[in-house]
């Protein structure tokens, strides 16, 4: 039997190494903390113009590059048009609007997940819609009806009162809103902390911890985490009833206090974390729904959002109502 010489073996080894290089390079390895878990630390942003819910006119989750470009351009055009005001005074009886769009930062791009350009953050159900039950719709309608009241601060939304950010920005699930879509993750043995820029809320996730007694219902719920390989899995329940209704630009979601939100954080590269979550709330939805959001590394730091310091708006709304009475 012919036996290969040492030179042949050496050449084969070198060739094998060179051929394996691309695959090796593609398999990016997450940095690790000193205690042996993936390092998710840093400042991240989930800003995107992809909404949680898909528009009726769009059937597919994945958009073609041409369709995506059209949507991104159209949105940019619209933002530009908001600031076009007529000469002279604005018309009476119109929507009062807000302020110049330079104050807004909802992102400019549609979400890209695993190379796909997404039309909605929801991936399940397939139609990209929130699968509300009739009971869920009733809960939303009841809360919206309650917003007609300006009798006292307690009737207003948590965002208006500077208690939590609006639209579930602090979550869970953590969703992008009109601005301040930044998050800072800090890890220590046994804990993961997520600082949410809007409204400077800090989520404390206890790794392999025990649940709080059921009577304790903290803002942002009670979060317990564990690691599944490279993925941080966080299960949250025991929500404060005050946090059930979460309204924003593109979504109205309702989570009952006993809903279970399961989040999965997987670092895909130096500059991206894939954030996946599912919502299990059988008293509000007909089925469990799931969504995927890229969290991209943010250049620069997270800023304080001391919402209480200058919240003239709440008194402005209440005094407006007193004035009309």
């Amino acid at each position, binding site marked *: 039997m012919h036996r290969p010489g040492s030179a042949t073996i050496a050449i084969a080894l070198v060739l094998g190494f060179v051929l394996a290089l691309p695959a090796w390079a593609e398999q990016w390895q997450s940095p690790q903390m000193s205690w042996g878990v993936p390092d998710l630390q840093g400042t991240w942003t989930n800003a995107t113009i992809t909404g949680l819910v898909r*528009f*009726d*006119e*769009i*059937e597919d989750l994945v958009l073609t590059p041409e369709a995506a*470009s059209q*949507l*991104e*351009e*159209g*949105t*940019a055009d619209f933002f*530009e048009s*908001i600031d076009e*005001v007529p000469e*002279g*005074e*604005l*018309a*009476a*009886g*119109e*929507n*009062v*609007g*807000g*302020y*110049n*769009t*330079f*104050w*807004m*930062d909802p*992102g*400019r791009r549609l979400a890209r997940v695993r190379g796909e350009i997404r039309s909605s953050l929801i991936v399940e159900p397939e139609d990209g819609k929130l699968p509300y039950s009739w009971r869920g719709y009733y809960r939303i309608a009841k809360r919206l009806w309650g917003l007609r009241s*300006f009798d006292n601060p307690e009737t207003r939304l948590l965002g*208006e009162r500077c208690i939590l950010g609006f*639209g579930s920005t602090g979550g869970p699930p953590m969703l992008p*809103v009109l*601005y*301040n879509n930044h998050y800072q993750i800090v890890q220590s043995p046994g804990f993961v902390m997520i600082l949410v*820029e809007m409204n400077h809320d800090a989520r404390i996730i206890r790794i392999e911890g025990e649940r709080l007694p059921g009577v304790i219902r903290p803002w942002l719920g009670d979060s317990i985490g564990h690691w599944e390989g490279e993925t941080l899995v966080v299960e949250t329940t025991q929500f404060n009833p005050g946090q059930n209704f979460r*309204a*924003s*630009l593109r979504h109205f979601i309702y989570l009952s206090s006993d809903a279970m939100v399961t989040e999965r954080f997987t670092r895909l590269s130096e500059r991206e974390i894939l954030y996946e979550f599912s919502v299990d709330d059988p008293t509000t939805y007909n089925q469990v729904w799931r969504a995927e959001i890229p969290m991209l590394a943010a*250049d620069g730091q997270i*800023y*304080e*959002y*001391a*919402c209480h*310091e*200058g*919240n*003239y*708006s709440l008194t*402005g709304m209440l*005094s*407006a*109502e007193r004035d009309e009475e």
Partner: protein
Amino acid sequence: MRSNDYSWTLLIACLLLLAAPAIAHHSFTAEFDSDAPVLLKGKVTKVEWINPHAWIHLDVVQEDKTVVSWMVEGGTPNTLLRAGINKNTVKIGTEIVVHGYQAKDKACKPACKANGRDISLPDGRKLFMGSSGTGAPRDGADPRERKRSK
């Protein structure tokens, strides 16, 4: 996509975005009077660079030469900080033009309030030049950045 025409999608997006400020930090509709549009021209006297929203103060000289103090509501300063803009960018004494609606509460204490539906310099340029149309930092990802550059 059911259709190559995205007009309906864009229309819905536009309607939602129009309503955006009303469901952002607070209800502008509840705070400001749609029957009281204002066009203010005056010099900046103070900038409150605070959260949740910044307020820009200006003195408006009336036709009878009396001065009325106004304060105009903007958005969060955090977004502008990311674009390299801070409270010192708006110099005291800068003349500005504000399109907006007056607050329903017209007590004018400590100043008359309005929202800054559009804040610009007298020559028409937006108050915070250098920001793109969305006001966010430029990172090359915005397909409209070059067009919007001034």
